[in-house]
């Protein structure tokens, strides 16, 4: 027989535990709100046309902007995508279509390992392999470092998406006499396209804000650079350098740059999420 006192104690424990989870939720959301709040509050005032179109002024002079960093980031990400997306999709296709063997598991495990390698370690490796060989910090090295970081995410999401394509779709295509490779490219990959694009966008958003692997690869630059073999400014690098500098004007620009960066990234993630949700609802209804 359960006494009334025990019951009351259990009720109380229940109430306490449930409110504790609610408090945890509030405490987790709080930093998110304050981070976004500060980004908007500090950043919005410093965003102007100059910030988006001009390169940095010499120390101590007001004005100037982060245009070279924004462009530099764009170029680095372009190189990274050119490396990371094909490699990732290729490996994903291998895993989904040919990878049901021990070799497949080795590749899968390696992708997970690569995903867990700290970004700073990837930076040092690319430094040794590319920068030392080229004798230059360069846009190319930065792109390679970020490209490597994109590969595992793209690989695993491509594999997952291809796995969700029903076997009967492959059979139907093969039954029409279409070669296996053509079936994979034109039928299987195409029907999984929206999911794969989602994976690519998430990988892109993840590396877009990466700073550590660029420290000793792209290195940063106070001026414009469009050459593959020269040091290049990148938005996250500029935010870092400005944030740890002692100048108020640079702090202001760091906040503005951070706001630009977060808008780009959160924009990407939100679009992806909208996309993915709709796809899921359609696919699994």
């Amino acid at each position: 027989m359960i006494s009334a006192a025990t019951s009351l104690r259990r009720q109380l424990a229940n109430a306490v535990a449930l409110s504790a989870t609610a408090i945890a939720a509030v405490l987790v959301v709080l930093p998110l709100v304050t981070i976004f709040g500060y980004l908007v509050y500090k950043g919005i005032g410093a965003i102007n046309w100059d910030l988006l179109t001009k390169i940095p002024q010499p120390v101590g002079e007001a004005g100037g902007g982060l245009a070279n960093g924004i462009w530099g980031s764009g170029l680095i990400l372009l190189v990274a995508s050119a490396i990371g997306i094909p490699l990732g999709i290729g490996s994903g296709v291998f895993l989904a279509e040919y990878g049901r063997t021990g070799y497949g598991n080795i590749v899968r495990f390696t992708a997970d390992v690569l995903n867990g390698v700290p970004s700073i370690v990837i930076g040092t490796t690319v430094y040794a392999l590319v920068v030392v060989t080229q004798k230059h910090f360069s846009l190319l090295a930065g792109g390679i470092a970020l490209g490597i970081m994109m590969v595992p995410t793209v690989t695993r999401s491509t594999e997952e998406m291809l796995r969700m394509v029903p076997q009967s779709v492959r059979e139907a295509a093969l039954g029409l006499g279409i070669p296996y490779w053509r079936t994979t490219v034109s039928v299987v990959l195409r029907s999984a396209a929206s999911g794969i694009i989602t994976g690519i966008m998430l990988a892109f958003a993840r590396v877009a804000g990466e700073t550590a692997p660029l420290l000793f690869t792209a290195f940063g630059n106070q001026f414009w650079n469009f050459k593959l073999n020269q040091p290049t400014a990148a938005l996250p690098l500029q935010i870092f350098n400005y944030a740890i500098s002692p100048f108020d004007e640079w702090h202001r620009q760091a906040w503005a740059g951070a706001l630009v960066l977060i808008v780009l990234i959160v924009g990407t993630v939100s679009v992806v999420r909208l996309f993915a949700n709709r796809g899921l609802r359609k696919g699994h209804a």
Partner: protein
Amino acid sequence: MEAVPKIKFKPRPAAARPKESLRIEPRSVSVLLPPARRFADPAFRALVLLCAISLLAVVALIILELVWHSQMSIHSFGFRFFIDSAWDPVGGNFGALPFIYGTLVSSFLALVIAVPLAVGVALFTTEVCPRGLRGTLSFMVELLAAIPSVIYGLWGIFVLAPLLRNYVEPWLARTLGWTGLFEGAPYGIGMLAAGVILAIMIIPIVASITREVVMAVPHQQREAVLALGATRWEVMRTGVLRNARAGIAGGIILGLGRALGETMAVTMVIGNTPQIAHSLFAPGSTLASVIANEFTEATGDLYLSALVEIGLALFIITLIVNVLARLLVWSVTRGVPERAIA
């Protein structure tokens, strides 16, 4: 000649059909094709295989490069490197202990703060909160994961550090100063700030994995406990958490892996001093932050080699931690259909 695969055309109910029964080996199909097209399939296979091999090659290169460039330091210092607390670039004497200490303490601190909050928010989203709020809340937690490290650092320098310096650290010193963990001048910047920033950064990882494994717990478990007259908390505790604990442990270790290797945010708030201080207010340094700070300024081969050896140590530690985490998460979510997890 290769065996032609058996293809059964007997219709069977979809549910009973084994997934792999109708697999057609591409090589055997191409035998039937005209010669010009016969090589297309093997070529395609070779192409995707090449992509997969390059993935292996990248990891192999990372390992080779780390081992190769750290040779000089390994030969000069041997195992002493990991137990020596001297970091003296001028005198050419290098020991990684302060960084190992900093990495372990900041990550441990992050776990202490993050785990209860992450598990709490995961339980709140899956078991407690109204359905309508569920999507919004998990989206907000995901957003935390999307914020770049450097922005956490920026926020850490200008918002978190002053907050710690002016309010939290004086209060901690007054109430818990006797523990010895909270003494000295409250700089704001230091080990505590690094721990808090890391905690915020790993919460989304721990929370999303916890959510996954909690949702993978079969509904019958909850219903059975509920039928015995349990309160909602008792359902969560005995029906859900107990079944999901291996997976949650996996999520925690995965978060630890992220915390150990996190660079920018930590570099910006930890103070970058190679010292072992018992107070959490004191500045410190981690394996990742010392590489970020000193790699481009390293003069001399031995200095660079010592930094690469720190990278190697970091790689090995995160590798072990991540493998452990994956195994734990797999052990729980394995066998659960994709959809239940997503």
